[in-house]
């Protein structure tokens, strides 16, 4: 891997392609989670990889390269979000009923792409907070700093995102649930 990094730093296009092939699928899934559609995900991936190749010389080999690239992708997504944050309307979620389901089979029938689609349908602020909290392991305080919001807002966004997702799972898999219970 170090050889590959070295070649990428030297500007070897083949090595850059190899690095891209190695991580693009994983990173595209992450970008997809942070975006509203494939176009936006592609845009984040594009900018993210440009930054990766531009800053690879600064990679200290102290941690995994995948983690470092992931961090760049997430930062790019956060930046994109911040750029557009004022464009997104704040959606108030009223009368959300938190539904409790108790069917383990539902889980087995849910596929990742559908779950990501649910995340994508969240209001942007909720989507961002949910992603950062669940997948990146950020604390609410850190999320607040990154997104320029208060810690309380981060928490409430997360709770509401979770409630929406619960509702979405319930609605989308009602049929599955019925089938399983039969």
């Amino acid at each position, binding site marked *: 891997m170090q050889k590959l990094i070295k070649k990428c730093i030297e*500007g070897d*296009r083949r090595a*850059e*392609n190899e690095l*891209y092939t190695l991580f*693009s*699928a*994983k*990173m*595209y*899934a992450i970008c*997809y*989670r942070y975006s509203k559609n*494939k*176009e*936006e995900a*592609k*845009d984040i*991936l*594009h*900018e993210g*990889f*440009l*930054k990766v*190749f*531009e800053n690879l010389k600064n990679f200290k080999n102290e941690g995994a390269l995948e983690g470092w690239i992931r961090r760049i992708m997430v*930062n*790019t997504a*956060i*930046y994109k979000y*911040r*750029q*557009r944050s*004022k*464009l*997104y*309307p704040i959606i108030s979620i009223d009368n959300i009923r938190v539904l*409790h*389901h*108790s*069917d*383990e089979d*539902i*889980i087995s029938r*849910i*596929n*990742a*792409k559908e*779950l*990501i689609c649910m*995340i994508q349908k969240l209001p942007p602020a909720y989507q961002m907070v949910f992603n950062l909290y*669940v*997948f990146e392991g950020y604390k609410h305080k850190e999320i607040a*700093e*990154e997104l*320029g919001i208060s810690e309380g807002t981060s928490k409430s966004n997360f709770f509401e995102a*979770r409630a929406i*997702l*619960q509702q979405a*799972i319930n609605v989308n898999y009602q049929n599955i649930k019925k089938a399983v219970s039969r």
Partner: protein
Amino acid sequence: MIDKNDDIVDLFKSVVEPFELAPPEESWPLLDLELERRKNENYRRILLRFKIASLVLLILLMSSILFQFYHSGKETKYGFPFADLRNRKSTAYLAKPDLPLIKDKVELGTSNINKNIFQNSYDSKSKEEIIIKTINKYHAPLVTNQKQSVSGLKTGKQKYSAILPITTVPNHTGRATDLSASQQENNSMFADTNIYYLQSSGPLTKPLPDTTIVTKPLEIVDVTQKNEPFLDSLNTKKESANSRLTAYLFFSPDYTKQSIVDNHNVDNQSEADYKSSESPDFSFTTGMKCNYSFNRKWGMQSGLTYSYFSQYIKPVLIFASNGSDGSPHYALPTSYGIVELPNSTTSPSKVGDSLYLKSDSRQVIQFINLPILLTYKLGGNKLSYYLMAGASLNMVISEKAILDEQGTQEIIHKVTGLREFNQSLIVGAGIEYSPKNRFCFRVEPTFKRNITPVNKNNPVSTYPYSFGIAFCLGFRF
């Protein structure tokens, strides 16, 4: 079980986390293309820096050659024999018995500053006063004497690039010649940039103190005849020395970039993004400025200048936000401010809609500047060097962006978030060539950097900096 909040989180973690998704096929070719473009841009940037550095070196080299040529030409022309005696002990030639010096009337003393600095003192009651006054007539600002009682002479220390003792000149009409010891029978008057000195035959009373004398004569003047052209040139020199105010017209091509500070202070994403998307276009500064000299060294420069700044913005995806009229507009964020597209050509249906600007956009901002600089002059009369530093108040007079919106070129004259006024610091150096007439020419490399941002209410603060070479034509009043 997903009846608890944690279950939802676990569900997403377990299912989504390991998920991988192949990116679109066109992703790598696009990335490859962009990497190639950036690589070429880096080469171009390096090449541009190299060109600028070469140009500066060339200018310095040429000015040095000109300077050397100017001086050496004079020496060769008149065959000045002491050209090689610079930094030699004066007694090496002054103590020759046939060199006429009157030590008790005119003295040379060494300064404690450095070897090449002297102070001249003499007895004003002596006959030599007349000579000194004669000299002073032409070079009063350049001759210094300790004694204030001598009219027309300045007091205090004076740096001399050359000085020889004032000698008795019983009759300084005679044929001009050089300072060769073998030609002492002839009276001569020598002029250099700083002082005139006379020499005539006569007995040497005392040797001079053992001190270093640097001789840099520029002209040897025949005072045996009425040398009108020379006297005229002296008068011109005197005039030009007295003219304190010079006005310049100038033009300076500029290379302008910007330093961007991310106001969120979390990461440097904004900075990196703007840096990668914006590249400099041809910019320039022109206008008029005046230089007022307080004395031979110090001066002040001010004027009114016009700056034209232009930059390219690479193809980018832009989004719609609520515009100044409350309805959704596409907005192009730049490091100088946000360019709001009118809805005449393409209007977004809602906030958050996106639009891809397929080709390079261009942003043009025009300023009127009021610079105030302090200047410090080095060197001689004809060819001089100077340093300068100061500040400038800049006012935006016009801003526009030229966007290619789905094949249609749109010119937008509104950039929101741009400050009307900003300030910058200027440092520079220059070379001035002053022929004997009232005109002079300057080549002036300058570096300018903003100390206040050009934008406000923005995620980033932008501080432009520019490097320019001004070509100036001046006129002395």
